[in-house]
């Protein structure tokens, strides 16, 4: 199997099928590279921004919800609500931070 060697120029046969898979993969890689950054930059950015925002808000809702129910249950209004809202804020930032780190790794 001669993988890297181009076919000899003397005979006019088409390139051997042996390295067809390799050539196909190379061609696909090229087309993906050329498509990658151009396609949908705006929608992708919009999606990312939306993802971060929901991450922050959802954590705040969950934290606030837990605090509110615990307060109602234990009769300690408003202290646990405040504590869990703060924790929820921190959790939202942590989630958003992890998300950003993951996206950075993906490139």
């Amino acid at each position, binding site marked *: 199997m001669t993988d890297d060697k181009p076919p000899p120029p003397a005979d006019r046969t088409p390139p051997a099928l042996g390295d067809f898979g390799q050539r196909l993969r190379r061609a696909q890689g090229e087309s993906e590279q050329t498509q990658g950054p151009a396609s949908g930059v705006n929608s992708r950015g919009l999606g990312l921004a939306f*993802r971060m925002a929901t991450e922050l808000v959802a*954590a705040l*809702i969950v934290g606030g919800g837990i605090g509110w129910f615990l307060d109602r249950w234990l009769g300690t209004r408003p202290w646990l609500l405040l504590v869990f809202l703060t924790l929820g804020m921190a959790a939202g930032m942590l989630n958003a931070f992890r998300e950003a780190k993951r996206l950075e790794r993906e490139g």
Partner: protein
Amino acid sequence: MEHEEAAAHGPLDQFTIDRLIPIHIGGIDASFTNAALFMLISVALVTWFLMAATRGGSLVPGRLQSLAEAAYGLVASALRDNVGPEGKKYFPFVFSLFMFILFANFIGLIPVPGSFTVTSHIIVTFALAFFIFVMVTLIGLARHKLHFFSLFLPAGVPIYLAPLLVPIEIIGYLTRPISLSVRLAANMLAGHTMLEVFAGFVIALGIFGFAPFLFVIAIYGLEVIVAFLQAYVFAVLTCLYLSDAINLHKH
């Protein structure tokens, strides 16, 4: 006249749920609504699409088959990249989820009277997200037993920070179904409301309506992208949660 009609038919009317076949079982309203109808339609369409696409099974795919193969490849690669080889087991689940949401989003974009976007209702997306959340948690518990809870205490954290960090991690974990469902529903809700608001301007402005009309076309294009993107994001995040349950932060 036009104003009265516009007031009677607001941009949020498209989200109202109508009882098509009223069913009451023991005081519980289990009516067959238009939401249920459109869920059935999307399931039927997904089934038809995949059956029709795979019937031929030719080596050189036709139009339908290459669409189905693209969808398959998208979900399969998301699962492979995020979960690894272990994720293959969960492919049918993630793929059904992706196709259902994708078709529900696209069906909602077809501008016919009575059209309904199932995924714009938070209870629908929340039911999906909550199911995923429970399933992922159970998978994690079954695989790792009590070791699963190490998810809430990242490695290398000083022990005196644990009382602060563990609640934060737990809240962050509980946030998942909320953020997953809110993201999809809010995207659909916002886009469809915006479309309808601008479509209302087209009629109200009469001859000058072509300006908002062009804008509606542009938004519609954006909505098609969003419909696809949100289904994909939903699937990818499901993969990520699965990965957390299976690999426990180890990647």
